[in-house]
């Protein structure tokens, strides 16, 4: 039995936390690559904006795209509703409204994350660098995932957390690879080949796939990298793995009677996985970017379907008057 509002809140909190972790990871990896190649990296920072934010809006509002401006935008900026800071504050606030359903340890860790992160400001970022901040975010993120795994009973509440995380991961991984794969058809100009090599390595690192890839492939080949990151069913950050989790979660919810059998989002998920498999040989090679665009569309449709099916009865508190009434209740 799950309240619709609680299900939606858990789903959304998990999505937010996954996004925060991915943002941190991508920042680290892009920064490392810039240091490694010694190049200005405006293109690479621009790519991050395409994946995690609104590239065109950023360009319109700022003159330069570089590590400093994009780094700030994605971490502590007040103007970005998806900055890590905004995400963590939001996640903590939402989690508080369902804290009775989280284990005490999990709530403590998330609350602690918020408290720790509130300490970060521009001058601390300057002193300690984006690495340090990313490390904090990732470590807290892994702690939370561990606590979710081991201190909560694996019931429908737990499953909605997993579902949110899985869907966000599928979306971001597809987008991440799709943005880079646009270049698959072009061969790099002379001298650009090394940079390209670094970029593909970076992409692998972002998905924690660099070491596993090296074990199973003789060299960096763009096509092989794309296939690995999209289709490898054992790689936790691949699109295939994430979509598999999305399906598994829904079957579990149906088993727990928290989702109707043969619900539309489950059918959509199966379609998406079938598309992923089909496209594996043919389309992937011809038009990887288009193929991954379609995968992202599937993810968006799955999310809308989950909302319609499960969260229809969830009511977003309108704030303002509601908060005033809540505050005014006497608790003598």
């Amino acid at each position, binding site marked *: 039995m799950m309240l619709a509002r609680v299900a939606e809140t858990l789903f959304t909190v998990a999505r937010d936390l996954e996004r925060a972790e991915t943002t941190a990871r991508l920042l680290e990896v892009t920064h490392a690559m810039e240091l490694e190649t010694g190049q200005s990296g405006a293109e690479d920072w621009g790519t991050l904006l395409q994946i995690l934010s609104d590239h065109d809006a950023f360009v319109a509002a700022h003159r330069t795209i570089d590590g400093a401006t994009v780094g700030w935008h994605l971490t502590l900026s007040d103007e970005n509703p998806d900055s890590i800071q905004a995400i963590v504050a939001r996640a903590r606030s939402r989690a508080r409204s369902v804290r009775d359903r989280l284990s005490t340890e999990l709530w*403590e860790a998330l609350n602690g994350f918020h408290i720790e992160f509130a300490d970060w400001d521009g001058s601390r970022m300057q002193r300690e660098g984006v690495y340090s901040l990313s490390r904090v975010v990732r470590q807290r993120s892994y702690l939370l995932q561990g606590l979710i795994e081991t201190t909560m009973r694996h019931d429908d509440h737990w499953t909605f957390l997993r579902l949110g995380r899985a869907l966000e991961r599928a979306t971001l991984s597809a987008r991440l690879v799709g943005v880079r794969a646009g270049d698959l058809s072009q061969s790099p100009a002379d001298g650009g080949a090394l940079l390209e090599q670094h970029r593909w390595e970076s992409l692998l690192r972002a998905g924690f796939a660099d070491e596993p890839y090296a074990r199973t492939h003789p060299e960096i080949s763009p096509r092989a990298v794309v296939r690995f990151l999209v289709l490898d069913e054992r790689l936790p950050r691949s699109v295939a793995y994430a979509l598999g989790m999305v399906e598994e979660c829904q079957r579990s919810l149906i088993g727990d009677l928290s989702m109707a059998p043969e619900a539309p989002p489950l059918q959509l998920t199966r379609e998406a996985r079938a598309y992923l498999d089909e496209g594996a040989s043919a389309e992937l090679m011809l038009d990887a970017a288009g193929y991954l665009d379609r995968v992202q569309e599937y993810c968006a449709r799955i999310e809308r379907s989950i909302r319609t099916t499960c969260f229809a009865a969830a009511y977003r508190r309108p704030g303002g008057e509601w*908060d005033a009434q809540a*505050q005014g209740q006497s*608790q003598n």
Partner: protein
Amino acid sequence: MFAADGATRAVYRPLSSRLDRLNARHLDLRSALAQDGFVAQGITFSHDGAERAFPFDVLPRLIDAEEWQQIERGIEQRVRALDAFVRDVYRHRRAVHDGVIPNARVINSRGFLREVMGITPPLGRHVHLAGIDLVRGGDGRWLVLEDNLRNPSGLSYVLQNRVFMRRVFPEAFSDYRVAPVGQAISQLRAGLAAASPDGAGEVRIAVLTPGPENAAYYEHAFLAQQLGVPLVEGSDLVVRGQRLYMKTTVGRERVNVLYRRIDDDFLDPSCLRQDSLLGVGGLLQAYRQGNVAICNAPGNGVADDKSTYAYVPDLIRYYTHEEPILDQVQTFLLDRDEDREYALDHLEDLVVKSVDGSGGYGILVGPHASPEERDAMARRVVADPAGYIAQETVSLSRAPAYIDGEFRPRHVDLRPFVMFGAQPTVVPGGLTRVALREGSLVVNSSQGGGGKDTWVVR
């Protein structure tokens, strides 16, 4: 902690000698550990609009078990009588007919809810969870200061204070046999389950909260979690066919016992406050039909009204046919001419409270007030005599609190909690509230008061 002659009271001697052996740094560390724990868990109470960790004092407040027995019996008696009074108010009003309390007091009470006239809840129980505020005067006598029969809060702090004490000051427990409090949750659950209109086999409890913006939200979430029942907001609920349901991911799920932490007025926008966003339309009708129990029942405010308070000793005699075991503070009803004349002549000796205040606001503490403040209050009283009562001042006892590295005496009161299912059950001890500002008599957490663990000891 100290007797009138300054000697350490017997019950405190083991604690006192242990404290002597402990150096200040240790106590500082323990205190900080407790505070950090409260912050980490977000055990908070809103104060001045900000979320603050509940100020927890690391020294327990001790009550001798024999002394406690008397208090316990007195509270049980009082809650039985108050419950009977509420039942009577909304049925035949025999106490009024028999001249124990005037009808005007009843129907003019802010807490009187005419919409629930004639409704008899399951077991006839109106008071499921009460907090009875007590003070221990200088002469060692316990007095009832106030009854809280609507949304008494603090039970979560009672339980968490004990958990934290075990964590940060475990050795103190070996000096005493301390009565446990952990059973409070199962007792609360039993009390709520007893209210089920569908019998013991069909108990579907939910806790209704106004949401995270409310000052006591932590407690709502904690209790729901400990009870193992859903925490709902008004928008999660719907009434269909005069039955109450929760909105789930796959449809509706029945609720037949609603432990609500919102005010009466906000329960049902279809017949009470129309602008309420916190309740659910049709709830009172479902209640009237006997399809849902509401705990505490709507309309209890008629019995914890400050103007009804003066009649409680007589009500106890009327319903229980016994003398009240616990005394209460002498109270003057200011719309009675002789009471008002006396009060206005003795303002510097009395406490004047507005009848519908709660949380420690709207009070004149005569001995501490300036002549201007007393005059202002006198004018308010003359303008609206029925809106005020006056009470003799009671010197709250003091207990040592650990503040800024030292033991400082601070005024304390006591709020024991009573669960009332088939029988009333009192949780041993209760919440000791501490006025943290030196000399202050105001202990309410909404005004920055803190808390101590309370030990009933042998």
